[in-house]
C-alpha cells in the first residue's frame, strides 16, 4: 500500500517502446540495402546487433544485474546503428568489435542505459573509423547488379569507388545525378544512402514522438544553410546542398545519432541549440576532418556539453519569460 503513489494511471508508453520504434525504422534501411547488395549488409547488421547484445549480457554478469535489462532494446539499437554505417563489404568482425566497444567501454561503466554520458553508437563508430579507415570507407559500387559474396571478407573482385563525401572533399565533380542522390543509388554505407527512406524514418519517429522535431529540424536547416553558404567547388549551389546533406553520415546522424534521448538535452530550447550547433560542427568536421565520419566526433563533443546546455538554456528561458511576464503585468496595472 505504501508504495502506491499518484498518479494511479500511467501512459502505455515505456522505454522499450521507444527503442522498439527505432529498431523498426532500421528494418526498411536493411531491406533497401539487401535489394542493392544482397544479404551481406543484413548479416553485417545482425552480427553487430548480436555482438552488442552479448556484450550487454557480459556486462550484466559482471554487474550482477538481471539479464532482463537487455529487454529494453537499447543494446540492439546501438548494434544496429553501428552496423548500418558500415560499408557493405566490410568484414563481419569490424562492426562486432565496434558494438562490443560501445557497450563495454562507453555504456556499461557509466551504469548502463539511461546513465551513459556519450552516445555509445557514435563512440563505437568513431573508434572504428580511426582504427580501420581503409575497411570502413571503401564502398562497392551500388549499381553492380551481382550481389556481394557472404564470406568473411570481400576480395578484390568487387568494383569499389570513393564515397560521395570523399569526392566532395577532394573538390572533384561527382558523377551522381540528383535523382540518384534522392533515390540513394550511389556508393555509401549500408543505411546512410537511402535518402528518401531516411526522411520517411524521421517523419515516422517524429510522429510517434520518439524523436523531437526541436533537434531534427534545426539540425537539417543549419546543415543546408552551411552547405548553401559554402558551396563545394565544381558543382552548382543547389546540387551542392543536396549532395552535402546526403553525403556521408550527415543524414543518418540527423535521424538517429543526434536523437539518442539519453545523451541529448531534454528541454526544447536546449534541443534547438543542440541541433543548430550539431549542424555547424558536423558540416565543419565533414569539410576539414581527416575522416569521413566527422559527424560522430561532432556528436561526441556535443554530448559532453549537453547537460550544461540543457540547464543553462532553461535558466535563460525561465528568467527571460519571467522578466517579460512581470513587465506585462506592470503595464497592465498602470
Amino acid at each position, binding site marked *: 500500500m505504501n*508504495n502506491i503513489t499518484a498518479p494511479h494511471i500511467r501512459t502505455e508508453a515505456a522505454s522499450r517502446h521507444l527503442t522498439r520504434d527505432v529498431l523498426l525504422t532500421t528494418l526498411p534501411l536493411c531491406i533497401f540495402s539487401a535489394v542493392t547488395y544482397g544479404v551481406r549488409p543484413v548479416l553485417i547488421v545482425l552480427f553487430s546487433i548480436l555482438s552488442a547484445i552479448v556484450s550487454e549480457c557480459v556486462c550484466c554478469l559482471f554487474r550482477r544485474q538481471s539479464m532482463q535489462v537487455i529487454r529494453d532494446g537499447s543494446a540492439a539499437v546501438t548494434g544496429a546503428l553501428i552496423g548500418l554505417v558500415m560499408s557493405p563489404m566490410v568484414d563481419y568482425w569490424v562492426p562486432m568489435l565496434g558494438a562490443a566497444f560501445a557497450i563495454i567501454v562507453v555504456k556499461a561503466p557509466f551504469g548502463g542505459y539511461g546513465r551513459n554520458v556519450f552516445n555509445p553508437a557514435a563512440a563505437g563508430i568513431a573508434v572504428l573509423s580511426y582504427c580501420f579507415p581503409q575497411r570502413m570507407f571503401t564502398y562497392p559500387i551500388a549499381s553492380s547488379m551481382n550481389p556481394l559474396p557472404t564470406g568473411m571478407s570481400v576480395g578484390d573482385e568487387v568494383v569499389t569507388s570513393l564515397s560521395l563525401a570523399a569526392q566532395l572533399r577532394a573538390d572533384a565533380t561527382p558523377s551522381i545525378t540528383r535523382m540518384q542522390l534522392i533515390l540513394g543509388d550511389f556508393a555509401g554505407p549500408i543505411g546512410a544512402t537511402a535518402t528518401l527512406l531516411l526522411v520517411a524514418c524521421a517523419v515516422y519517429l517524429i510522429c510517434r514522438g520518439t524523436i523531437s522535431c526541436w533537434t531534427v529540424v534545426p539540425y537539417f536547416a543549419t546543415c543546408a544553410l552551411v552547405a548553401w553558404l559554402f558551396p563545394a567547388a565544381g558543382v552548382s549551389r543547389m546540387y551542392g546542398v543536396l549532395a552535402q546533406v546526403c553525403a556521408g553520415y550527415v543524414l543518418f546522424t540527423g535521424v538517429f545519432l543526434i536523437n539518442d534521448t539519453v545523451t541529448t*538535452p531534454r528541454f526544447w530550447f536546449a534541443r534547438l541549440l543542440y541541433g543548430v550547433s550539431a549542424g555547424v560542427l558536423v558540416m565543419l568536421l565533414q569539410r576539414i576532418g581527416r575522416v569521413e565520419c566527422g559527424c560522430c566526433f561532432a556528436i561526441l563533443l556535443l554530448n559532453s556539453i549537453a547537460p550544461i546546455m540543457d540547464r543553462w538554456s532553461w535558466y535563460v528561458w525561465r528568467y527571460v519569460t519571467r522578466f517579460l511576464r512581470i513587465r506585462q503585468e506592470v503595464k*497592465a496595472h498602470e
Partner: protein
Amino acid sequence: MPLFLRGVALPFNKGQAPDADVLAVSATGPVYIPLAKEEADAPTLCVEENSTVAAGQVLCHVDRLPVFSTIAGKFIGTTMVNHPLYGSLLCAVIKPTRSKRVETLPPVEEPDTDTIIEAAAQACIYDELDGIPLADKLRLWRMAENDQAALRSILVADATENDIYGSSAWCILKEQAQEALYGLQMAARALRFSRYHITTMLPRNRRRALKRLIGRENVFTTGDEYPVTVYDDSRDDVFCIGIQACAALSAALQQGQKHTHTILTVAGDGVPASRNVRVPFGMDLEEVLQACGADPEATVILGDAMTGVPCQNTHFPLLPGITTVLVMQSHAVRTPQPCIGCGRCATVCHAGLLPYEIVRRLENMHYERLRYLSTTSCDGCGACSYVCPAGRDVATQVLNANETRGTIFLNWGGVENE
C-alpha cells in the same frame, strides 16, 4: 507560453455515470461531523447529548461559522476520528433516525454583497475544489466599490472535471445548470465582478445542450489538457470556485437550503459501474462504497486518478473537497527504470519546470542546486509521472524536493539558510 507548456490529454473513461441519474444514498450508520482538530479545542455545543437533531440544525459555532448536522438523527456524543487527508479530527456523532426533519434558513429576497456572503456562511457552503468555505473565499477576494481591478477580474465556475473518471460536475451541469449559473451570478455580485462564466470541457453534444440552456456567453470551453490552466482566453485575473458550490449558493439564496449533501463520483474497475451518488457530508465512506457495490478487496483512492491518495481503511467520514473516489482492482505499478532523457516530463509540465533535473539533483544530493530549479512552482499535478516512459515517480520526487529545500539539507550543500 501555451505553445510550449502543454499538459497532457488524458484518456477519458467516465462510463455511463454522467448520463445516469444521481443515486441518492442515505446514511444508515453514524455520521461524523468534524468540530475541531484536537480534543482540547472542543467548541461549546448548543445541543445536548442523546437529543434529536434535524438536518441542518446547528450543533455549535466554530470561528463564528455554524457547524450543523447533515442528517436528521440523534446526537450521541463526540469522538476522535482519523482522516487520511486531515489527520485526526474531533467529530460529533449523529445516528440517523426515521425523522426527516430539515431546518432551513429564510430565503434572501434581494441579495447584495453582504447578504450573499452571509448566506454562504450561514449555509456553510464548502468549495468542492479545495474544501475551503465559500464565504472565506468570497471575503478574501471581495473588491472595494469602484475598484478598477474588478474590471480585470473574472469569476469562473470550474466545471472542467478534467479527470479520467470524475463526472460530478457534468452531472450538475446536466441537472442544475441554471441554478449553478444563478449561484455564480450571485457570487460575482458579492465580489463586484462584472464578468463571470462557467468553464467546461464537455464533449460537443453536451456542450451544445448546455449552451442552449444557459446561453452561449456564459460557457467557456477549455482545451482538453490536464491540468487545466486556461480558464479564460483573456489575460485577466481568474478566480475559480466550484460548480457544486455555485449550485449550493443558489439553493441557499432561493430556498434557504443548507449545504448538507455533495455529489460524489465512485468509479474504477472495482465497482460494477461508475456512479454519481448524492451523500451527506460526514457519512462513512465504507457505507458509500457498499451502496455502490464496491469490491472490498480493491484499493480505495480518495481523489482522482492523477493526484488521489490511497487509503488503508475506509472507515472515515466523507468531508468537503473530494468529488471522486476510485476503487481500483488493478493498479498501475511500474518498476522505475533509469531516466532515459526523453524530456516528456518537461514538455507536459504546466509550471515549466525540469522535473528530470530536479529528480537528478535530489538523487545525487545536490540539494543546494534545488533552489535554482523553482521547485516551489510545482503543484503536484502528476502529469510528469503520468507520461514518464521509464515509469518513474517524478511528481512525488519533485514534491519531495520541495520539502527538502526548506530543511537541514540546505546547509549540507554549503549554502546558508536564508
